[in-house]
């Protein structure tokens, strides 16, 4: 199993008309993180997203996703790892019925036809839209369309979920539902949006892009309470933080970041531990399968050795549990 991180290293990109869009962009997002991407219009957010799934290819610098360096040859494979949800669900949902649309990706991945229905049901169930299965997309409400658009991507079981303005055009209730939905996902998440409250709710980490470069990178609460930084980037304090500021004086403003930083770092650590433990559990199961396979083949000594590895992996899991308890 590969470890799905996303790494941009000094990425440059120019549009055909010569205007630079990315100008030495560098960051690394590791497995299980949830990262918000914010910035003014034209800062390079969309260009960044178009690079993540290989629609655009870098002019200079490199993008590595998991164990693959993104180029013309690998982009098909990278698209299997990276699920990209587009801003406008009408662009994302291009098939005549919801079912066909959700089935589109899995079919392209070569999933057997008899297992497609199951996959589709699972993905639609996750976003709570199973009953919309046979409807045409133009009969759905905006909120339903957004949810189904996400289902079309998670049906492909990507490792990394990338979203462009997921809540634009949604009424407040649908937006709230979407936020709750996103919170539940355990994928690595990358969300580009102007909706800073959404970023605050969904993402632990936030990257500010300016002129095709990273202008700031850190825990969301720190970044999004930095009034100066935000104003420099045509952004505003999220509403949920604005009230705080009006009611309490500036002294608190200074205090919050420090506490928050510590808390956030810890939270992040806990989160990471959680994910790596999950990984470890998965690995352990795999070793066990190998052991039983070896047994079937009559290789008892190999089976015993593999079982030992399984035991050790199980031990490692309990160590993870311990560490998690202490970091909680």
């Amino acid at each position, binding site marked *: 199993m590969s470890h799905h991180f996303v790494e941009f290293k000094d990425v440059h990109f120019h549009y055909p008309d010569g205007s630079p869009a990315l100008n030495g962009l560098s960051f690394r997002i590791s497995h299980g993180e949830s990262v918000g991407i914010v910035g003014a219009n034209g800062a390079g957010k969309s260009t960044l997203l178009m690079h993540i799934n290989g*629609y655009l290819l870098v002019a200079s610098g490199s993008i590595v996703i998991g164990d693959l360096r993104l180029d013309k040859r690998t982009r098909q494979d990278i*698209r299997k790892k990276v699920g990209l949800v*587009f801003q406008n669900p009408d662009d994302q949902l*291009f098939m005549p019925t919801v079912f*066909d649309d959700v089935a589109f990706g899995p079919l*392209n991945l070569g999933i057997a036809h008899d297992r497609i229905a199951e996959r589709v049901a699972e993905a639609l169930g996750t976003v709570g839209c199973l009953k919309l299965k046979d409807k045409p*997309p133009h009969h759905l409400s905006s909120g339903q369309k957004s949810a189904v658009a996400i289902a079309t991507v998670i049906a492909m079981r990507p490792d990394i979920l990338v979203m462009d303005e997921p809540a634009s055009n949604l009424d407040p209730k649908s937006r709230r539902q979407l936020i709750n939905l996103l919170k539940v996902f355990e994928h690595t998440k990358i969300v580009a949006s102007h909706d800073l409250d959404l970023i605050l709710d969904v993402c632990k980490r936030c990257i500010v892009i300016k002129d095709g470069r990273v202008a700031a990178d850190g825990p969301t609460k720190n970044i999004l309470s930095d009034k100066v930084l935000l104003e420099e980037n045509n952004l505003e304090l999220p509403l949920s933080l604005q009230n705080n500021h009006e009611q309490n004086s500036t002294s608190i403003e200074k205090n919050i970041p420090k506490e928050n930083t510590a808390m956030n770092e810890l939270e992040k650590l806990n989160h990471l531990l959680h994910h790596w433990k999950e990984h470890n559990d998965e690995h352990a199961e795999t070793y066990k399968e190998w052991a039983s396979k070896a047994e079937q083949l009559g290789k008892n000594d190999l089976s015993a050795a593999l079982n030992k590895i399984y035991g050790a992996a199980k031990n490692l899991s309990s160590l993870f549990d311990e560490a998690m308890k202490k970091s909680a």
Partner: protein
Amino acid sequence: MFDTEFFNLGYLDRLSYQDTFIHRIDPRIKLLSSFMFIVAVVSFPKYAISGLLPFFLFPVLFLALGDIPVRFILKKILVVSPFAIFVGIFNPLLDGQPVLDVLGFTVSLGWVSFASIMLKFSLTISAALLLIATTSFPGICFAMQKLRIPKAFVAQLLFLYRYLFVLMEEAMKIVRAREMRSFGKRGKELKNVVPIIGVLFMRTVDRAERVYNAMLARSFTGKLYSTKPYALTTTDILFIIASAGLILLFRVVNVTALIGKWTIG
């Protein structure tokens, strides 16, 4: 006018997703029986009238069993009638020989053939409308694919259907913006319409680009798959046998004349 057309289209589309006995019949069966029906109706000779009447049983059954509003369908038939009327109306003008006496009035052969055209027109047009009102468009496409219509064409129909409503809405917004500032006739001249269509076109091309992106993001490699596992049910088989039988019966035997003779004695 644009608004009405748009909402009518949406309404008809919504009707097709109802769940009634007629809606549940397999699309292939409905497509085939509609074609049989139309060919049978059209195959009646120029002066047929009474023989056509029993065929009205089919649209009436579709309307009643499929919960389709009668007035809506009638209105739609009226809207498209001008061309048939335009061509047909020459028949009474050009062919004035008297042919029969109905309750004291002499009717010319031209009127008979005109009436026949209008009867056929109502029957065939309502067949098309009721087919789409009781069968979802993707269902019809599926039926076409099963009937060996080339895949490229079926895929084209499905995409067209998907973006029809999206683009109509976009066009409607542009048209509304134009109406708001055009005060009557002004603003509808060709020179003002060209940029509107041009802009709509460019937006469309951009959209195609985004859609293509979305397809690529989901591993599109140029192939469109279909997964419909439909199988014909006993009801479907019975339906096609019954409708084929009735169509044949009505075509070969003039039921109206028989009933007339039998009543009069």
